[in-house]
């Protein structure tokens, strides 16, 4: 029997299946019966859109309800901490204090001869380093900083402290916001929600932003390496990621495809993970290269480092297991 005729017979049986809700009686052909039974099973095929929405809902819930203190995150920190590194570490620390009122919590000299400083900004921690004898690469960052007070005043203080304006205060997306670049190449996107809490639900006061080339591949890397979840991903009709919020542990990072003045920044992130060795292996499998193999450190963390294919450095850390 020619294939076309077979295809038409099959379609008639599927029509009957769809209208009657039951697999029709035998067609008299064993092959056709087998295909109709499969068609009957496919009536329960789940909608891919439903599965993606449910996954997104679950990930949003995880990011919103993550316990305040994850067992593998150092007290006072969140899973994601930006590590700003400059050739002028001390000056950068002074700027962050003067512009934003950040509080210095800890300072020492790191193994590479530069300053290592930990600062509290709102509910978040920043690590700042460099300067002194440090001659390694610098690592600025793009940070979304939600302020409880007046963002215009914070913007003005940042300019007075030496930053340059990238965007004067304006309103959009339900926020009042402005953007400055400091003398150490860090971009600060200063914002406050126009109504309700000053910071959007699920975000901390400081959120790290990325502008990689190949944003969707970067999201996939975060998923594979660090079990990141898609909280929201907005794409253009051509599939370009315009804006995304991605959860990692109890934190959310933001990202969008590099464009215009928003070009890639080789940032460094200090990331607390449940299992350093597992995260290190998964990051390498997802395309990152090793910088430092995991090892126990004298300060109580097990630590390793990788560089992803987009130029970001990730220090993977977890308290040493007893």
């Amino acid at each position, binding site marked *: 029997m020619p*294939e*076309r005729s*077979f*295809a*038409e017979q*099959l*379609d008639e049986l*599927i*029509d009957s299946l*769809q209208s009657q809700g039951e697999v029709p009686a035998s067609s008299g052909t064993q092959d056709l019966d*087998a*295909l109709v039974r*499969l*068609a009957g*099973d*496919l*009536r*329960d*095929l*789940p*909608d*891919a859109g*439903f*599965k993606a929405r*449910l*996954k997104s*809902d*679950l*990930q949003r*819930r*995880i*990011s919103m309800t*993550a316990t305040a203190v*994850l*067992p*593998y995150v150092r007290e006072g920190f969140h899973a994601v901490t930006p590590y700003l590194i400059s050739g002028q570490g001390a000056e950068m620390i002074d700027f962050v204090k003067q512009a934003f009122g950040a509080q210095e919590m800890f300072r020492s000299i790191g193994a590479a001869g530069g300053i290592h400083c930990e600062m509290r900004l709102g509910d978040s921690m920043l690590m700042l380093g460099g300067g002194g004898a440090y001659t390694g690469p610098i690592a600025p960052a793009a940070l979304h900083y939600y302020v409880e007070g007046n963002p215009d005043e914070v913007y003005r203080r940042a300019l007075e402290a030496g930053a340059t304006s990238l965007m004067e205060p304006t309103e959009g997306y339900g926020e009042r916001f402005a953007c400055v670049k400091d003398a150490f190449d860090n971009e600060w996107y200063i914002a406050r929600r126009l109504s309700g809490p000053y910071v959007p639900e699920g975000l901390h006061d400081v959120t790290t932003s990325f502008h990689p080339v190949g944003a969707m591949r970067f999201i996939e890397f975060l*998923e594979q390496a*660090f*079990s*990141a*979840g898609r909280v929201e991903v907005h794409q253009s009709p051509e599939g370009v990621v315009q804006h995304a919020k991605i*959860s*990692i*542990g109890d934190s959310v990072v933001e990202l969008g495809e590099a464009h215009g003045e928003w070009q890639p920044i080789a940032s460094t992130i200090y990331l607390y*993970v*449940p*299992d350093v060795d*597992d995260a290190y292996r998964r990051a390498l499998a997802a395309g990152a290269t090793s910088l430092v193999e995991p090892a126990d450190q004298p300060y109580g963390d097990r630590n390793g480092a990788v560089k992803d294919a987009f130029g970001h450095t990730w220090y993977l850390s977890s308290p040493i297991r007893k």
Partner: protein
Amino acid sequence: MDESLLIEAAQKDPSRFAELYEANVDRVYAYIARRVQDRAAAEDLTSEVFHSALANLGKFVWRGAPFASWLYRIAAHAIADRWQQSRHNVREVLPENLPGGVEEIERRAILFQLVDQLPEDQRRVIVARFVEQKRIQEIAEEMERSEGAIKQLQFRALETLRGHMGRANA
């Protein structure tokens, strides 16, 4: 990764729950879809099962049975609750009386996963025909192909799935 290690990882770090979801969503949906009348109810209940599983993951103790068994139990309770609330949305067959049981659910879950591996034009026809419940004429217009071509794609897709299912069950 071994399922027990993945469960342990998700209990420590809830973001790992996404991996448990990916591994089990087709099974849970297949389990529920056989027991309820319509797609909207199947989606509601599947959603309820995974939200409940996420909320109670910390209480889960792995005793060697597949994680899916726990999800099926949550699903059975959710279906029973719904059946008590509205006695017309659930098929007359109780879960434990369905032929084939877990093996049949596994077979369907494999079938659903194989649909994603079909060539794109065949996959589109299967989704349009069975998920969106469209007629051949509508699909032909959307894909700008003849009705005959769409019937051929439907036929080839089912033949491909049948072949893969045969290999999967071998």
